[in-house]
């Protein structure tokens, strides 16, 4: 050993120092670092799990949202269809009532026109008859002489009448 230039005592001392250093490093450096790394890994894993959970919740929320949107759209479409149907029914009913009302007005107007026409015709006939009778009255009165009046009285007397 001496020939090799190795001092046994110094070697043992260095080995012991090295062991002591290793033990000290293990106790005061490696273990805390490893613990810190483990904790960091755990936090990362937990974060990843949280992120995945959050993503799943977000996906579920998205699905729920889409479902509600779909239901709302279907409900809105149903209400729109019903409103359109009611609007069509109302329009047809209103048109029908308007046609009936117009027909009633038309019929009444025709009746009134007919009545007015008949009244006008009657009035014209009455006026014409008045004129004819007035003319006939004057003519007959002018034509009746004493003899004719006497004949009329005789005709009255000759009429049995009783």
């Amino acid at each position: 050993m001496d020939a090799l230039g190795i001092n046994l005592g110094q070697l043992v001392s260095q080995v012991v120092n090295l062991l002591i250093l290793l033990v000290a490093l293990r106790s005061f450096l490696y273990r805390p670092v490893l613990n810190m790394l483990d904790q960091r890994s755990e936090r990362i894993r937990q974060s990843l799990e949280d992120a995945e959970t959050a993503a799943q919740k977000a996906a579920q929320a998205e699905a729920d949202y889409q479902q509600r949107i779909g239901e709302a759209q279907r409900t809105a479409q149903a209400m729109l269809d019903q409103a359109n149907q009611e609007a069509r029914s109302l329009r047809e009913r209103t048109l029908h009532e308007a046609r009936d009302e117009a027909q009633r007005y038309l019929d009444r107007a025709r009746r009134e026109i007919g009545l007015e026409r008949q009244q006008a015709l009657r009035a014209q006939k009455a006026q014409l008859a008045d004129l004819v009778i007035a003319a006939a009255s004057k003519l007959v009165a002018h034509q009746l002489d004493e003899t004719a009046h006497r004949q009329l009285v005789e005709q009255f007397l000759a009429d049995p009448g009783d």
Partner: protein
Amino acid sequence: MKDSMPAQSSAHGPVAASESLPFGEDYTGPSALVRTAVALAEPQRQLILQRLRKRFGPQVRARFEVDQTLIGGVQARVGDDWIDDTIATKLAALRDALVKGGR
């Protein structure tokens, strides 16, 4: 023109005479109003009165009036009964027929 005439006599009995009150104030029997377009001669009045008495009874007395609107003929009313043989009435009937007849 109005002409009141007291009937003088007839086959059914005497006829009362009065210018202002043809039957007298106390007369309550049947009376006739005879209207003509012209004034009648007395013989015609008597004949008419005879006819009225024959139909409505011998107590009938008559008052005669002239109404030129009758045009001609004789119209007599006794109570609610009418005898109408005047030209005016016939023309009125003709007018009604003209108005109502045809369309």
